[in-house]
């Protein structure tokens, strides 16, 4: 097991390089660069940018170098001094901007995961055990509705109701007094009191598919001879369900842990923007639009790293949970 983990860690290094390089190329692919965007912004307010100024800006940001050189300079900075470069737009070191946002993104991702599982697992098992019952149909209809409603629309509707009907403050993850306060237990409490809305919105759309998967897997397992044997031996129905069929049916849940983060970031961009969440997605989108490439690159790199770590975690968990899986 330890050998397997060590091997996987070693494999992560080339994968990260490949991914970061791809990300860097992709960010550079659109026409123009940060300076073009900057000139566009200035020109919209009728300022004439002298050609010399533009050239000088490109030189200042090292945009004149060939892409490979830019990439290696950036990577060297990260590896040698943990320096992710400067955000052009904010004139701040990238590392100042990303960590808190990534942390909040992880909090949101994990909360969403827990909420999704807490809803989907019991309902999935219930739907399988009580197939074609009223409850099964009800939950199926309800979750399909959740799947069909676009999450940003749900977010807007809920915000509208909360703001216009109840006069509540909506959006964001903190109350005004905690927004820029240092971390404390009170601030944590405030965070969780705001977190439920985005978590519900994001969970609603992902529960439906998980319920269907859980239900199908359980239905595969329930008629198997070992279940019948167990029943004949007089195991209580609950223990019987939990002992084997449930463990095996959990397989898809665990193997998708790794996708959770990229899915959450890409899938929740619109929700995060609508709800004004201080997570990674809105800042990443802005960075991409402004061609602020070191900022965007750092986010992509981190998301990839977390995805690789996530997939390692799922593999280890699968080995623990599913008796059919062996690492050798």
């Amino acid at each position: 097991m330890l050998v397997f983990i060590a091997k996987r860690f070693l494999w992560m290094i080339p994968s990260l390089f490949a991914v970061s390089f791809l990300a860097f190329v992709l960010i550079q692919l659109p026409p123009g660069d940060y300076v073009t965007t900057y000139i566009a912004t200035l020109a919209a307010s009728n300022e004439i940018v002298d050609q010399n100024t533009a050239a000088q800006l490109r030189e200042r940001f090292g945009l004149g170098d060939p892409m490979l050189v830019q990439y290696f300079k950036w990577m060297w900075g990260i590896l040698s001094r943990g320096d992710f470069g400067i955000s052009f737009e904010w004139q701040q070191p990238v590392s100042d901007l990303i960590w808190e946002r990534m942390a909040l993104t992880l909090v949101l991702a994990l909360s969403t995961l827990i909420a999704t599982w807490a809803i989907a697992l019991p309902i999935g098992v219930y739907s399988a055990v009580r197939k074609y019952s009223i409850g099964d149909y009800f939950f199926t209809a309800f979750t399909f509705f959740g799947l069909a409603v676009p999450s940003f629309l749900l977010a807007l509707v809920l915000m509208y109701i909360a703001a216009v009907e109840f006069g509540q403050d909506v959006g964001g993850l903190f109350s005004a007094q905690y927004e820029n306060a240092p971390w404390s237990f009170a601030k944590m409490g405030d965070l969780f009191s705001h977190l439920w809305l985005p978590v519900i919105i994001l969970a609603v759309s992902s529960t439906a598919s998980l319920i269907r998967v859980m239900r199908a897997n359980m239905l595969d397992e329930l008629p198997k001879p070992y279940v019948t044997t167990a029943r004949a031996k007089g195991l209580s129905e609950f223990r019987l369900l939990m002992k084997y069929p449930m463990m095996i049916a959990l397989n898809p849940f665990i193997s998708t842990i790794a996708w959770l983060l990229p899915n959450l970031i890409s899938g929740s961009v619109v929700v995060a923007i609508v709800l004004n969440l201080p997570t990674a997605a809105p800042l990443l989108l802005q960075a991409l639009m402004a061609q602020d490439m070191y900022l965007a690159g750092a986010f992509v790199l981190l998301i990839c790293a977390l995805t690789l770590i996530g997939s390692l975690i799922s593999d280890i968990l699968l080995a623990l949970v599913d008796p059919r899986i062996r690492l050798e």
Partner: protein
Amino acid sequence: MPNEILSRGITRRAVLGGMAGAAALSIAGRAFAAGGEAPALAQLVKDGKLPPLAERLPKKPMVVTPYEKVGTYGGSLRRGLRGSSDHNGILRMVGNQSLVRWNLDFTAVQPNLAERWEVSGDATQFTFHLIEGVRWSDGHPFTADDVVFAIEDCVKNTELYSSTPAQLAVAGKPVTVEKIDDYTVKFTFAAANALYLENLATPLGQHPTLFPKHYCSQFLPKYNPNLEADAKKAGVTSWTELFRSRCGDIEIPSRWGNVDKPTLDPWVVKEPYAGGATRVVMTRNPYFWQVDTAGNQLPYIDEINFGISQDVESLMLNVISGKIDIQERHISVLANKPTLSQNMQKGDYRLLTLVPSASQQCQIYFNITHKDPAMRKMFADKSFRQALSMGINRPELIDIVYFGQSEPYQAGPRPTHPWYNEKYARQFTEYDADKAGAMLDEAGYKKGGDGFRLRPDGQKVFFSIDVIPTLYPDLVDALELVKTHWAQIGIDMKVNTIERALYYTRGDDNAHDAAVWPGPGGLDPMLDPRDFFAFHPQGSRYAIPWTLWYTSNGARGEEPPESQKKRMKLFDEARSTADLDKRGAIMKQIFDIAAEEFETVGLCLAVGGFGIIRNNLRNVPEKEPDSWSWPNPGPALPQQFTFTS
């Protein structure tokens, strides 16, 4: 806060006269000499943490006449920003403190940090007399040294600014600023710069008052030998980066990202505008140098709270639920008007009317200098452009896209402007498809078998028009209608919706067939004449190569025809003419030539936007110009906005 309640309670009496307000304030337990100050500041003075008001104000502070009435202290003003690159949203509200400022009507320049000035007869020398005793927000005196430092040491430092900002250079040479005495500075230009005062009143004229010497000099190698080490310590690559991140510039986010930088603004940064910020909070500047007519120190309002919305819809939600006190930026598009009008009672606000300073809502620029000779020949054919202009059904377009709120228009100053030119504004705006078709036939663009016209070389007439949907969604709708109108006269066009940076890249490469943009110069024709001749290298999109020729004095680009050269010469002449009537006469010549040449095709007069003002926010003009040169609402002086309970 009991003090606040007290000061709120005196509103009605404060109207009766300045002293009443002051007397009522004295109930809040403070002695005062001339006028009042905010209760919180009075408390600080009492605690010995702040010098008394008389020492914080200039000897003769600038007196601002409140728009409606003398106000009361207190309150927090809420306004919205967008998530990215919205630093100018802050500038427009607070950062408007230049040497001079615009009046409310956008017609004359008034004293600001300079209480008076002299201009030499040839408009090359400007001598400004600063208000004596103004202090930066940290209490340090503001003197001529700061102005000299800002221009001579900062703006003219070629490592910091590789080329001098257009404002401060004439005839290719930067301005020279000298200190006459502590409160007098002289600006000398290499050639006449008659528009300098007007330019100085715009946001881009803020350089002279932007950099406090006592603070920013530590980021210049000239004053700080250890600067490179400091930069390394701060984790940036060069001293210029460090300077920019600490002292900012007129139009970059970091201007609002440093709480330590002293300013001359009514409010100073408390919670900075930095990457990832979800709000920006600005709090009153205890050393602000203006008072109201009763001698009370401005600003009235304690703090400004800018919430950052990633999305306009959530900003709209905040507006209609009454969580925003004044907002026009980001919500002023016509499509929002019904929603905002319906919710006036719920949100407890009134509407604010914006008078557009632009001339044209949607100017179509055919690329007369196209790379493809056949396309160039077609677009350069004046009768082709005239026919296309007459093939547009403007009344229908105005009804559908602009709710009937506009009138057919081509270009030039707005009808209310003294230099308005009827021919330039209205020619070829009547809809006549038959005549347009006949003109196209005559010009050699005959219809082919499919009903669309062919060029003389047998190719189908087809071109695309670039437009940025994220910036101006209404222009996309307008173009879609124009496309149907042109199809009826046999012209095939593609509405090319592209991303903003690509729009500019295509322009820089002269790779566009045609593009649209709102045509400026309706109220400020001198400040942005991009439509009147090839003036703006990113904006005069009918002939970018000609603009390069103009801005590089013939070194780059492509030599323009005589009529363009003549206008360039006239404009340079107008720019150096101090006498307004003479200047107008020269500009009118430019409009006559431009009308004759008919280079751009416009659709309709620029439509006014609107905003909202909460009903308890007073002293706000309900009609104001909407322009970057008059950076609303700044020139309406938010420091004298006030809340009534």
